[in-house]
């Protein structure tokens, strides 16, 4: 091949390469990154009775550039105990739910990874199938179960275990059950992926060297499945902190969660700047878990 033709071809490939890279990069920058910049911008503006309901940050009036940065929304969040309580409530509820998910999900994933290849496939489908149906409807199912005259109370009353119906609906308990139920598959999946990759020879070696089962578990299995534990926990914890549907349907007045507060601030109070500030603070709180998850995930990409 002529060198000039070759270099022309290489140049064309280079151009094509750039275009291919640009496509997802531009789309995501426009529809994922830029929106966050706007949230930050609007969180710094003042609420106004206008369409859209916020004031301008940068104004060009009488040949002077006025930049009005307004930290008032953030100060407002800090001064109102409702918001602080909502953040705290979200973090606490999400943390407990993640822990419960891990305690249920780990033995499940472990048992799955120990079965034959054919069973693994079937069990994996069985675990994932609920998450493909409908999130909303799966939460709705618990409304009929946990209610005062719901199935669980009827069952317990029928068995004579309780005399009066327990109040389970609209409590923190119901919210945690809802989160665990909705997000359990996302905990099991990465755990299973890690545990099934685990080399049996390592466990046998440990056992041959006289290590007890519990000791082997703590020193070999657990460290080797750490990636799965982190990924699974983050896949549950981060969305759970911002959860709206579950506290709205299963929670009550005493289960304050930030996702629900943000929703109400936006849709009911139409206070876009405060809603934006709420989102920014939530993002800040979740930054460390998100970075953690991303580190793990990009390692998976580059492996």
């Amino acid at each position, binding site marked *: 091949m002529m060198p000039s033709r070759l270099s022309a071809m290489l140049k064309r490939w280079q151009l*094509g390469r750039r275009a291919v890279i640009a496509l997802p990069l531009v*789309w995501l920058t426009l529809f994922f990154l830029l929106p966050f910049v706007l949230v930050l911008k609007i969180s710094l503006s003042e609420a106004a009775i206008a369409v859209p309901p916020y004031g301008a940050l940068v104004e060009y009036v009488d040949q002077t550039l006025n930049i009005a940065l307004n930290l008032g929304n953030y100060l407002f969040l800090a001064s109102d105990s409702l918001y602080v309580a909502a953040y705290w409530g979200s973090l606490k509820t999400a943390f407990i739910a993640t822990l419960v998910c891990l305690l249920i999900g780990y033995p*499940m994933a472990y048992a799955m990874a120990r079965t034959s290849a054919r069973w693994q496939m079937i069990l994996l489908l069985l675990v994932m199938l609920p998450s493909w*149906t*409908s999130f909303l*409807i799966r939460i*709705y199912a618990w409304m009929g179960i946990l*209610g005062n005259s719901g199935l669980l109370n009827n069952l317990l009353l029928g068995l004579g275990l309780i005399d009066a119906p327990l109040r389970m609906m609209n409590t923190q308990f119901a919210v945690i059950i809802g989160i665990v139920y909705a997000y359990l598959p996302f905990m099991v999946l990465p755990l299973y992926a890690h545990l099934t990759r685990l080399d049996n020879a390592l466990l046998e070696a440990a056992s041959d060297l006289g290590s007890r089962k519990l000791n082997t578990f703590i020193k070999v299995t657990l460290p080797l499945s750490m990636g799965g534990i982190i990924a699974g926990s983050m896949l549950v914890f981060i969305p759970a902190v*911002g959860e709206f549907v579950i506290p709205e349907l299963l929670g009550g007045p005493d289960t304050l969660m930030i996702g629900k507060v943000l929703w109400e601030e936006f849709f009911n109070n139409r206070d876009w700047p405060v809603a934006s500030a709420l989102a920014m603070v939530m993002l800040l709180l979740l930054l460390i878990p998100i970075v953690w998850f991303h580190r793990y*995930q990009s390692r998976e990409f580059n492996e």
Partner: protein
Amino acid sequence: MSLARPRIRFTSVMLVMGLLFLYVPMLVLVVYSFNASKLVTVWSGFSTQWYGELFRDEQILSAIWMSLRIAFFSASMAVCLGTIAAFVMTRYGRFRGKTALSTMVTAPLVMPEVITGLSLLLLFVQMAQITGWPADRGMMTIWIAHTTFCSAYVAVVVASRLREIDLSIEEAAMDLGSPPMKTFFWVTLPIISPALAAGWLLAFTLSLDDLVIASFVSGPGANTLPMVVFSSVRMGVSPKINALATLIILTVSLATLVAWYVMRRNEAKRKQLLKATAD
């Protein structure tokens, strides 16, 4: 390990209990969809009247149609974008903007929906102010929002498949003079097509299921199925929703069964082929 006498393992018990926990509530939904009484918790005889009412509900039917259309277009676009992103991430080595791209591809997986929804709405409002587009929000804006977060899921599914396959096949094609574009469409794409199908299906169900993001970016008049179900469920339990739930569970189960069957048949075929070439 194989010498251990058959006994009930703690982990197996937990697996069964976990699966019961996942399936009993859905079973309850299905059973009570056939209840004659309007009260969802009291059984008063078998009836299919709620299915009849469901199919007469114009609002639900039109919402189903709208959701299906949005999910179809979002999944299709997400597969294109997500596959390109996955290909770039796994095959292009180092390039400028790689960190930015990998961050933007994985972040939507865990981003709380309220944040994504709010931020996209603010973008659309701002864009409408500056460029006059989108003049009103509805199917188009939901499609953009769904495509964006679904393409992240597609990218993860496709990237894991791209990492698994043998690079030497693509290299062989390139060595024989096939340009990159041709290699991608004639060699890489056929190999990863199962992952594309899986990614499309995942994106389709995610889009169909989304309530929060759609509620933010939708405008008046554009109601997706989750939005209609949510406003009904907020008022309390209703057997009509149980009937809808049963149909959804049935559809997803059937689709999963078919996918599983196809997968197993392909696997068997591949094994046979391997055996034939070995002989």
